[in-house]
């Protein structure tokens, strides 16, 4: 592991000033162009949960009490859990199509915290590079 200062640490993620470490990979922050956070199964479970809820209501008379309770609880738990699942996708234009763009699935709270830290670190890095004149693409550059 690099000796850089640790900015964020959880059971699966470690963000330092230069790297992002996940259980399977370690990314150099300089290779990252942007970070994307999604809740991939939330809309799916919301639509499916809504339809099943409507179904339960419409066929209420044909269901036993145990089945009604089980269905309502299952829908609630499934929608609740799916709202907590998030993916973090690390994008790089230079390494596009490579293995850098794997999605990391974890709790949405942690994933968002990782993105916030990464955003701040990348912004700071970009500002430093601009100030020191080492930015690879500067506005108004001579091309």
């Amino acid at each position: 592991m690099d000796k850089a200062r640790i900015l964020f640490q959880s059971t699966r993620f470690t963000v330092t000033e230069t790297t992002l470490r996940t259980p399977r990979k370690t990314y150099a922050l300089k290779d990252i162009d942007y970070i994307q956070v999604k809740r991939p199964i939330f809309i799916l479970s919301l639509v499916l949960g809504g339809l099943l809820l409507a179904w339960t209501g419409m066929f209420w008379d044909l269901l036993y009490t145990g089945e009604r309770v089980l269905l309502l609880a299952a829908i609630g738990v499934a929608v609740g859990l799916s709202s907590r699942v998030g993916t973090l996708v690390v994008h790089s234009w230079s390494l596009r199509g490579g293995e850098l763009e794997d999605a990391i699935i974890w709790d949405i709270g942690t994933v968002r915290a990782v993105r916030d830290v990464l955003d701040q670190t990348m912004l700071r890095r970009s500002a430093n590079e601009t100030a020191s004149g080492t930015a690879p693409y500067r506005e108004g550059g001579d091309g």
Partner: protein
Amino acid sequence: MWQALFEIIPKPAILALAAYGAISWYVTGPLVAQRVAAVYHYPGCVAGLKAPLRPGVSPADKVLNDLERLPFFQSPLMRQLGLDGYLDLIRREREARREAARMSRPDPARKCVCLIAHAIERSRTAWAVHAASLRQIAWAEISGFDSLIREVEKEGRCHG
């Protein structure tokens, strides 16, 4: 075509609808069919099968009754000879045959379970659509489910 569809409707929503369709086909459709059949169609089916084979007085019984009333069978000589009892013998034999025919019929409850299962299997798509549409769509197989049961019975299924 799919690309255009994915651009209009979000992919997760399409996947959710596909999953809902699969659930309707494999789980909710058959479940609704079984419950509806048990509540609304099974009692009528059993009552129909329990009904007597030929209700009322059969033509043969009518002939026996008419014969009994003839003066010939009412005469003391016939009674003395015991020939009036011959008609009773025929009547009892006919009753025994009728009882045997009734006993040889399959158990109505079991037969109805079998007929309904076949009818449900035949109308599976209609039940899936009915369940998925939240009771809004009822094809002919559902509104005329009793007829479908009779149709299955006429085909000779579930005998014995």
